[in-house]
């Protein structure tokens, strides 16, 4: 039993059905399986150390999907790299993960790891190695509170528990045409890949550039007759605001899933108004739990501007509100196996066997779970996890910076990181910006960097983050 089982069942019953579409390229289930089989065979012919991931250095699309399926079939787990992040960060992740090979297009210079060029793969029948459900399937790196990125290690069991639940939730079937928007290093992509392929649906990769052209996105969804997709509220907000939706109803769009941050109620109300026949779902969960809570949007409750709830337990997970700080604890089948750091798995459950999310929650009058904020400093920026400590570590690694503090500042379009820095004389902020850009991905770059003579501090000596936030918001 493993994650690919339902895909294989669809392969044998409908080998010629449409599976993956990217631009003008369209592959059937059989063609996808054969390309993945070629990847698996090539991996098996290399004698690679057991127990480490194979990295995927490809953008979302047909090649990347075939690479993922091939890696899984070869009995290994995949590590998707964020190709938009600085190369330094990608290399750091390759080293930390102890990845044993990379699949991509042209090999990178100065990389000693075995490199598989996806473009030269010859089709081979797909014969996945037998696996246990507890075997690792994916390692997704996110921002880490200790100052460096950390890998979240997901087993076949964990991904299957979510993908199978989501498939049932939206009644996915072979007729569905799913738009894949999320990059592979985002846990949202596990729906695109595994819920879709296990239900015989086809995946349509969003053409590059459409996320910044909302009305073109609408036209593409309409022309492609997309029946559902899974994205983040910030993208959906932009789409709802400027997507020309009033002039272009999307009759084929059956459902929309969103997660990663709170959807502002007014914007969701606007979107729900444009899509009267589309079922909307708010999914919730940190990468460590994938989705553990969900709320099928009840349109009649959107009239007030109250934040929408995160709803009810999902995927067979159990939720518990620990009394001390009203922190949400989670147990259940979607939980990751642990953190992957320096090539090793580190379990993250507490002594009682729960994962402590660090999210403060409550229950409303209807008994629905409601998100109330973080217990620590973590920020969600357009669905990305951003740990201020990681930005601080990047700032402090610069010789120009003496001390610094990073906080989240909120305005009409969401939360962004901002930094207060104390610097050596004669250093300019643009220099700091340019240096930061070499190590941090775009969504982690502080939108405001302000130079202070010293950081305001509390009586215990720690930076006074409330005052710093006030200074940076001004």
């Amino acid at each position, binding site marked *: 039993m493993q994650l690919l089982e339902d895909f294989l069942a669809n392969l044998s019953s409908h080998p010629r059905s449409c599976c993956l579409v990217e631009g003008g390229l369209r592959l059937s289930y059989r063609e996808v399986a054969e390309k993945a089989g070629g990847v698996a065979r090539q991996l098996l012919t290399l004698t690679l150390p057991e127990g480490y991931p194979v990295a995927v250095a490809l953008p979302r699309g047909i090649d990347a999907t075939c690479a993922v399926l091939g890696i899984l079939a070869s009995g290994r787990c995949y590590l998707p790299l964020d190709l938009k992040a600085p190369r330094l960060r990608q290399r750091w992740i390759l080293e930390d993960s102890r990845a044993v090979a990379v699949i991509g297009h042209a090999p990178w210079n100065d990389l000693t790891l075995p490199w598989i060029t996806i473009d030269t793969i010859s089709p081979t029948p797909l014969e996945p190695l037998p696996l246990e459900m507890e075997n690792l399937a994916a390692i997704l790196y996110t921002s880490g509170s200790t100052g460096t990125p950390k890998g979240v290690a997901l087993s076949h069991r964990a991904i299957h528990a979510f993908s199978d639940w989501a498939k049932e939730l939206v009644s996915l079937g072979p007729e569905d045409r799913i738009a894949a928007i999320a990059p592979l290093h985002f846990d949202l992509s596990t729906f695109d890949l595994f819920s879709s392929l296990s239900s015989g649906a086809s995946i349509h990769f969003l053409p590059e*550039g459409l*996320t*910044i*052209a*909302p*009305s*073109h996105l609408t036209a593409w969804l309409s022309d492609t007759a997309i029946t559902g997709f899974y994205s983040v509220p*910030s*993208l959906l*907000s*932009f789409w709802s*605001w*400027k*997507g*020309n939706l009033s002039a272009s109803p999307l009759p084929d769009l059956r459902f929309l899933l969103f997660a990663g941050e709170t959807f502002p109620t007014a914007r969701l109300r606007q979107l729900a108004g444009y899509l009267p026949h589309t079922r909307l779902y708010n999914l919730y969960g940190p990468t460590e739990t994938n989705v553990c809570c969900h709320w099928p949007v009840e349109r009649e409750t959107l009239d007030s501007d109250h934040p929408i709830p995160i709803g009810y337990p999902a995927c067979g997970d159990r939720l518990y509100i620990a009394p001390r700080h009203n922190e949400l604890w989670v147990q259940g089948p979607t939980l990751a196996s642990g953190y992957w750091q320096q090539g090793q798995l580190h379990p993250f459950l507490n002594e009682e066997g729960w994962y402590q999310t660090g999210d403060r929650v409550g229950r409303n009058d209807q008994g629905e779970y409601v998100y109330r904020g973080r217990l620590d400093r973590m920020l969600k920026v*357009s669905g990305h996890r951003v740990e201020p400590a990681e930005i601080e570590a990047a700032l402090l690694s610069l010789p120009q910076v003496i001390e610094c503090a990073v906080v989240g500042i909120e305005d*009409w*379009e*969401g939360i962004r990181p901002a930094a207060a820095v104390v610097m050596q004389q004669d250093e300019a902020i*643009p*220099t700091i*910006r*340019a240096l*930061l*850009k070499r190590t941090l991905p*775009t*969504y982690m*770059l502080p*939108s*405001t960097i302000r130079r202070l003579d010293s950081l305001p501090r509390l009586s215990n000596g720690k930076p006074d983050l409330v005052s710093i936030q006030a200074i940076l918001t001004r």
Partner: protein
Amino acid sequence: MTDIRAKLRGFVLEELVYCEDPDTFSDDEDLLEAGLDSLGIMRLIMFAEREFGITLPDTEIEPDMVRNFNALTGWIESHRQ
């Protein structure tokens, strides 16, 4: 026009795009390659509509309009008349 360009440059180079030296960032340099992403463009459009009292039509929002400061300034200017 100069005023619009200066305001757009100020906002984009201060808040949305990281560059070595804002003063030497040229008006035909590619903003999308410099890191302007979808969230940045949403913020840019909100800024432009509020700052210049205009409404930018949905169907005009596409990469070529925000590709560089020359294109962006021309686009905003065309809605002020």
